[in-house]
């Protein structure tokens, strides 16, 4: 039995020369839309019970439109969606919460909105209260809640009843890490009991660890559907291609702004991270040996060239930094027109998370005297833990353990 089948699905937003023409159409008058904007076209796939499917794609690829049509809030323009079972979505938690009502009253309201009868909610309310773990606050007005508490209650309601399909937006943070773990544990438990997961994410790590299939959307169509590993590689290739085409863009996708500065006697042509086999990578395993390659173009004759880099964590704290001066490899009397490629090979003994690389070209041991080019956020990569035992922190410092009694 197919749990979810999507057939030739398409969604167009129509604009009319006048809204009256739109209204005339409801009364079966033959009016043509002045403009049709297709955000999704020819989407077809089937999902079987128990699968865990990652939906990936860049912003604007049509992920949320697709999900809205699967949940049924948006009507397709073309094609159809068939669902054999109940869908629950953890996309917007706390929708429809009323700040003046207590947590308990809001639970009744929210679960009612999901289509449960008062009796069903009465049976589940104790579990919801226990799961949310907010104590006496459960009977206080929601306006007195911290945002984390609100999330807890909202998540507890959204997952109070095991659905046949659970749609999860991975970027959605459910409060503190304790609760995040707890909620993920619940999602995994659902999966074990047979719930199909649809996970929307940008994060390769979670797609690969949770899903057994991934669907890649780009420009409103499915361009790849298969094992997560393969699909994510393809996805990264697309992103890489797009990034190269738009070198001048300095506002990054996450909203941070990349800064370049310097006098320009020498410039950074490219910064990339490679694995031992020499393939460019964005995801690094804990402890993996990688090479940071920095290609430099010298534009003017310069007496000395030192190239340095810094690894920063997601909060911008420097984790490690060095330069060719300290490494004993500074170049002297470099003439214009030369191209230099550095390869910094190191073991990524880093904790799980996202890191950025800043690269600088300068003279002497620091960039204060003469700064040719300084580039923040020259590269962003993620460290994932695939093979090592679980640990916390920024660094991988594996101990050997001795125990005496």
């Amino acid at each position, binding site marked *: 039995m197919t749990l979810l089948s999507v057939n030739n699905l398409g969604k167009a*937003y*129509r604009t009319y020369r006048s*809204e*009256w023409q*739109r*209204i005339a159409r*409801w*009364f079966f008058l033959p009016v043509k839309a002045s403009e049709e904007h297709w955000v999704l076209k020819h989407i077809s796939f089937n999902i079987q019970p128990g699968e865990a499917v990652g939906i990936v794609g860049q912003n604007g690829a049509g992920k949320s439109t697709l999900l*809205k049509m699967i*949940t*049924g*809030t*948006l*009507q397709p323009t073309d094609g159809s969606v068939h669902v054999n079972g109940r*869908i629950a979505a953890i*996309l*917007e938690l706390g*929708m*429809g919460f*009323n700040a*003046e*009502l207590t947590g308990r*009253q809001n639970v*009744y*309201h929210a679960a*009612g*909105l*999901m*289509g*449960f*009868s*008062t009796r069903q*909610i009465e049976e589940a309310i104790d579990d919801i209260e226990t799961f949310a773990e907010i104590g006496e606050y459960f009977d206080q*007005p929601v306006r007195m809640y911290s945002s984390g508490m609100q999330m807890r209650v909202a998540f507890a309601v959204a997952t109070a009843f095991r659905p046949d399909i659970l749609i999860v937006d991975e970027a959605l943070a459910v409060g503190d890490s304790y609760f995040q773990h707890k909620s993920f544990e619940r999602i995994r438990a659902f999966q074990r009991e047979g719930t199909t997961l649809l996970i929307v994410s940008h994060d390769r790590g979670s797609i690969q660890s949770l899903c057994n299939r991934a669907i890649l959307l780009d420009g409103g169509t499915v361009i790849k559907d298969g094992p997560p590993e393969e699909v994510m590689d393809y996805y990264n290739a697309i992103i890489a291609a797009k990034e190269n085409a738009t070198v001048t863009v300095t506002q990054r996708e996450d909203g941070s702004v990349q800064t370049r500065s310097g006098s320009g006697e020498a410039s950074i042509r490219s910064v990339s991270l490679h694995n031992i086999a020499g393939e460019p990578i964005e995801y690094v395993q804990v402890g993996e040996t990688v090479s940071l390659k920095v290609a430099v173009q010298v534009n003017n004759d310069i007496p000395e060239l030192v190239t340095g880099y810094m690894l920063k964590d997601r909060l911008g704290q420097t984790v490690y930094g060095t330069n060719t001066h300290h490494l004993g490899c500074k170049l002297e009397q470099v003439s214009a027109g030369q191209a230099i490629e550095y390869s910094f090979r190191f073991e990524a003994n880093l904790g799980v998370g996202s890191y950025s690389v800043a690269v600088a070209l300068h003279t002497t041991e620091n960039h204060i005297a003469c700064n040719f080019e300084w580039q923040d956020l020259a590269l962003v990569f993620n460290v994932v833990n695939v093979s090592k035992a679980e640990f916390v922190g920024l660094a991988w410092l594996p101990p050997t353990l001795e125990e005496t009694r």
Partner: protein
Amino acid sequence: MFGMLRGLWDYRGFILSSIKNEFVARFARSKLGGLWMIIHPLTQVAIYALILSNVLGARLPGIENKYAYALYLIAGIVAWNLFSEIVSRCLTIFIDQGNLMKKMRFPRIALPVIVVGSCLLNNLLLFIAALVIFALLGHAPNMQMLWLFPLTLAVVGLALGVGLVLGVLNVFLRDIGQVVPIVLQVWFWFTPIVYSVNIVPDYLKGTLDANPMYALVSAYHNVMVYQVAPDFNRLAVTVAIAAGLMLLGLFMFRRASAEMVDSL
């Protein structure tokens, strides 16, 4: 159509709890809470009664009670208040709940039903207050008042019909949201609520007859003030108009449902 009703039935718990929550939320952090919903129309009555009855010396023929004008006003306001509240809330319901409609899947028709339920609750409170005032002014409740049940239904039908049509249109043409309050105000004065129909010049009476609210308001007057049965011929026309508008409203709602979410 059948599916719509089933959706409503499945969501009855949600609809009831929404009506209750709205009521409860109104009392939160407000001492008089829901009473404000009664105080507002009653103040309106007091103002008209004071100014028009005392200052302008309006007298109502056909009734002995010296507070007759106040009774007349209250009866009219009970009817009008229900009508205008449903219309003006249906007008913006889809826009106000746009976010919810975009994010959650539920029978959309529940939204206007919740509006009707909550307006009926307000109207009940207002009606009870009206009965108390009637009793204080020496006008006991009578059997004719049982007509108020079908009359209330007729007002709801007409208001829901108008409200649905305008509410759906308002999603696409936002000017409607601005125009309707003005139209409602004009409509209020074109309905004999503040004045008696006897003082209307003959050449305007035809215009008055075309107003479906006229039949309803005068039926309220008949049963609450004059203690006689309503005029059925006139009511029949209004009920037919209400039914027609309801059907039109539901039809437009169904046709627009898909596009509504796109436009919100």
